[in-house]
């Protein structure tokens, strides 16, 4: 890796929900300007991991360093300042139903800056242009398709010109063309705005299109971190099964290891 600045540093992150260990001793450094994809099967802990990165959940053990602060222990005021420097795109866009598209995008500006309304109006148009939705300012979220909602969500995430953008399954539920559009936007933004992108997804086409590095999680552990090429040629059977989408393999879809016959007949009474 080139000698770039580290923007996020995770050290020995561990999280339990009750007695279940969700994340187990995770460590990861994310560099400025790269696109890191976090992937894994359902229930591997990737959404929980993402929420630790944005400071929404605090770990039981370990540290999460962002912008020089350990956000696992930051105060509310410190978190407020840090949140202005990152943006997040939620799975369904999470647009505020009662506001128009323009009002949704401008909300962070109106609350955290003293910008003139005329300037805000221009910024809204600029961000909409970036995501390919010129002229949509006055529509309500309920009038948008799924793909449009995500693009507006992305416009809102970048309105404060953040240094990092987090994406939670950005292509979930989108058709292949729309997926390509969102992927292209992700790549363009990273290049044009020099931001760092952290994407949680399990859409393999997206992953190989956009990633500089890939982190594969499985049941709360990091299996492998590597470039797309390294992951493609991984010797780890779990990684290979995930990439190829094979239903048969070490990642089992049957949750328990019971003997099937015993399980079927266990309740038969003599």
């Amino acid at each position, binding site marked *: 890796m080139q000698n770039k600045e580290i923007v996020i540093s995770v050290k020995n992150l561990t999280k339990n929900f009750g007695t279940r260990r969700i994340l187990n001793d995770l460590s990861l450094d994310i560099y400025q300007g790269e696109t890191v994809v976090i992937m894994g099967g359902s229930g591997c802990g990737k959404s929980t991991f993402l929420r630790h990165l944005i400071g*929404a959940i605090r770990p039981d053990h370990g540290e999460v360093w962002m912008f020089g602060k350990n956000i696992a222990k930051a105060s509310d005021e410190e978190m407020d300042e840090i949140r202005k420097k990152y943006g997040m795109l939620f799975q369904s866009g999470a647009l505020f*139903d009662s506001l128009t598209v323009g009002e949704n995008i401008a*909300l962070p500006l109106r609350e955290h800056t003293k910008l003139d309304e005329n300037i805000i109006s221009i910024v809204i148009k600029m961000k909409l242009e970036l995501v390919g939705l010129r002229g949509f300012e006055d529509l309500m979220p309920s009038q948008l398709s799924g793909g449009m909602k995500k693009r507006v969500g992305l416009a809102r995430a970048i309105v404060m010109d953040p240094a990092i953008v987090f994406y939670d399954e950005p292509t979930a539920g989108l058709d292949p063309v729309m997926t390509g559009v969102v992927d292209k936007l992700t790549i363009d933004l990273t290049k044009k705005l020099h931001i760092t992108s952290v994407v949680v997804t399990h859409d393999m086409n997206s992953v190989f299109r956009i990633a500089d590095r890939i982190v594969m999680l499985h049941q709360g552990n990091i299996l492998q971190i590597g470039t797309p090429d390294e992951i493609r040629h991984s010797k780890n059977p779990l990684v290979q099964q995930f990439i190829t989408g094979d239903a048969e393999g070490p990642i089992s879809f049957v949750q328990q290891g019971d003997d099937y016959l015993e399980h079927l007949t266990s309740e038969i009474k003599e």
Partner: protein
Amino acid sequence: MILFLESIGKLTQSFFKESTQILLLLSQTLYWVFLGPFKKKPVSRKGFFFQTVFSGPSSVLIVFFVDFFIGMVLAMQSAYQLEQLGAAIYVAALVGVSMTREIGPVLTSLVIAGRVGAAITAELATMKVTEQVEALETISLNPVRYLVAPRFLALLIMLPCLVVLGDLVGMFGGYLIGIFNLGLSSGLYIDTTIEFLTVKDIMTGLLKGAVFSMIISMIACYQGLSTEGGAEGVGRSTTKSVVTSFILIIVADAILTAVFYFAKT
């Protein structure tokens, strides 16, 4: 038997846990309402105004209907007894005092809990399950300041106003019964109503309205914001919000009535 005790234990535990959470929400709401402005983070005026319009003027019609008919029923029921004693005129006194002390505040609040309370819970619950509440947090907008405080304030101001409306409308219903069914004279009916009303009756009624408004807004917001589980969760929260509000309003009414009218010093 053990299962029965277990379930009582669990219920009590969750009751205390939820009560603490709701009181916590109340303290945060009061913080944003009273201390927020001093920290340059006041409650949004636009949001507050919108909520006021929604909970107040839009509820006038249903409050009018419910309280008007109850006022008439009160008059009819009491007239039945009082006429036989030749004391029909006291219908005016009875309707006036019961509307202002009890029926106005309690009935209006129950109606508002069903209308405004349910709507608040449904809206906040939907926002919760579509990640909008989480989105607010990532933009550093505190959900209590942005969502709960405007609704709390709006109801606090509007419900006593609606109670006043309900009181008047109920007394008007009784008035119509008195004039047209009981043959009482208009002037005498109004004079009797005023004669038997005390400031204490009206003030305790308004105070009850204010307390009930806090119950409705806190329960509605808490249930909405703690929803889990998609569309089914929204429905569950909304039902729980209305039922809990109803029960707590009646219990609070009993306590307040005892404090104002029953406690012997």
